């Protein structure tokens, strides 16, 4: 939970701003972002399209350069991609010529063979894909492929797992199942998670803290603690209250539709 371990920071984002320039005009994608994330915390970043949430994730992943401010992973500044951070994209982005097993092994080349095989077996089982080790990505369903992508990202023992709308392309039922899976994996691995989404319900179901971002320029509007016990009831009253309050952040002056329920 938040607050208890501010001295034990997994990630510190300090005054991060980023501008995209094109043909003389420039666009503030992120302005003065500050965020502290504790070890083992589950953070969801919620915002509409264009609020810079993906850019923030890519900065943490080390894929975006040329930003102002600093990002620290533990005590070390982030200076590029690294195996200490796993990244899961919206699309599974598995390499089509590698099997499930080989895809999971993609990032871990420097282990002895026996240890590596054991390691991979652990992650295959963790994401529930036993018996599919030798399948190729095109033989898998969307949900299964995304599980492999999560296993691949976790296999390098990252301190931080970054997920960029990982379930956005899945159908509603698969998405709910994957959210449960992710929580189960998190409870086993205790990896710090940052998940970017535009789905408010997903954030309420998953997060310890929800970071709400607003666009043009991308800023953090509010950070909400979610003090609900897990497993969470998707239809609980407190959850509905929380959703209402988040909903107001996005649609301040509009009528909240009565039927916004699951």
């Amino acid at each position, binding site marked *: 939970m938040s607050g208890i371990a501010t001295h034990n920071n997994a990630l510190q984002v300090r005054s991060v701003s980023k501008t995209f320039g094109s043909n003389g005009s420039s666009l503030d994608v992120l302005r003065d972002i500050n965020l502290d994330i504790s070890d083992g915390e589950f953070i969801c970043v919620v915002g509409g399209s264009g609020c810079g949430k993906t850019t923030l994730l890519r900065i943490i992943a080390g894929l975006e350069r040329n930003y102002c401010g600093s990002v620290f992973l533990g005590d070390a500044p982030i200076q590029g991609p690294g195996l200490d951070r796993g990244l899961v994209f919206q699309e599974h982005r598995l390499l089509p*010529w590698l099997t499930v097993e080989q895809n999971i092994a993609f990032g871990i080349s420097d282990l002895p063979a026996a240890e590596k095989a054991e390691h991979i077996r652990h992650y295959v089982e963790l994401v529930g894909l036993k018996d599919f080790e030798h399948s190729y990505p095109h033989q898998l369903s969307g949900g299964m492929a995304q599980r492999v992508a999560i296993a691949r990202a976790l296999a390098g023992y990252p301190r931080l797992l970054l997920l960029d709308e990982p379930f956005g392309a899945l159908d509603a039922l698969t998405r709910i199942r994957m959210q449960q899976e992710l929580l189960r994996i998190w409870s086993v691995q205790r990896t710090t998670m940052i998940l970017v989404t535009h789905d408010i319900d997903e954030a309420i179901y998953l997060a310890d803290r929800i970071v709400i971002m607003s666009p043009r320029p991308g800023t953090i509007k509010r950070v909400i603690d979610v003090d609900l016990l897990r497993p969470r009831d998707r239809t609980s009253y407190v959850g509905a209250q929380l959703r209402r309050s988040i909903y107001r952040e996005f649609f301040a002056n509009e009528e909240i539709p009565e039927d916004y329920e699951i």
Partner: protein
Amino acid sequence: MPAGGVVFWEVLSRVGVFPANALPAPTVIAQTIFDLARSGELWRHTGITLWRIFVGFLLGATVGTLIGGLTGHVTLARKLLDPLLQSLRNIPSMAWVPLFLLWLGIQESSKIGLIALGAFFPVYLNLSSGMSHVDPKLIEVGKVYRLNGFHLIRRVILPAVLPEYFVGLRSGLGLAWMFVVAAELMGASRGLGFLMIDGQMTGRASVILASVILFAVLGKGTDLILEIVGRRLLRYKTQ
């Protein structure tokens, strides 16, 4: 169907609808091939043709791979070389023959040069455009795992481009067969192309047709080898 056609052809030739000196019966052509094989002529001609194909294709495909890889990976090289190569590509194959004869003489090197040129373009084009179109999302995955330079090429770009590369190799081989005919028709004392000219000079249609059939069989055979190798390497697609 094809078998029926051959029988039909045989019958028409036998009863004399097709004149025997212009379109001999299939059995006559088979007999011609058999005779050529027995006298050793067949091996002499197909051997040299296959050797020219082998060396020329190897040379053209190697140069095509190197330049294609360079222009596919380095944008500057692509901008400098690609427009030139694209315009050279449009020159008809026969137009090169006089120049190659002048530069490389009438011996083997001009023939092999011509075949290499034919094999070069498809290999170059497919590899170069394939490499510059590798899904940037997959390259980004490589970057996430800190792959750069050689390792990125070996583990992401090459496997991604392999299907296009094999398409290039196969059409390069097809063009090599077309160019070997051109080269051997021009000036050769051995080879299947020479055998055709010889058949024409001596008025033996069966020899010409035998050469045509041998070209078809050998061309298909070498293509089959590449297809099998490609299918093995690209197993993941068909599984």
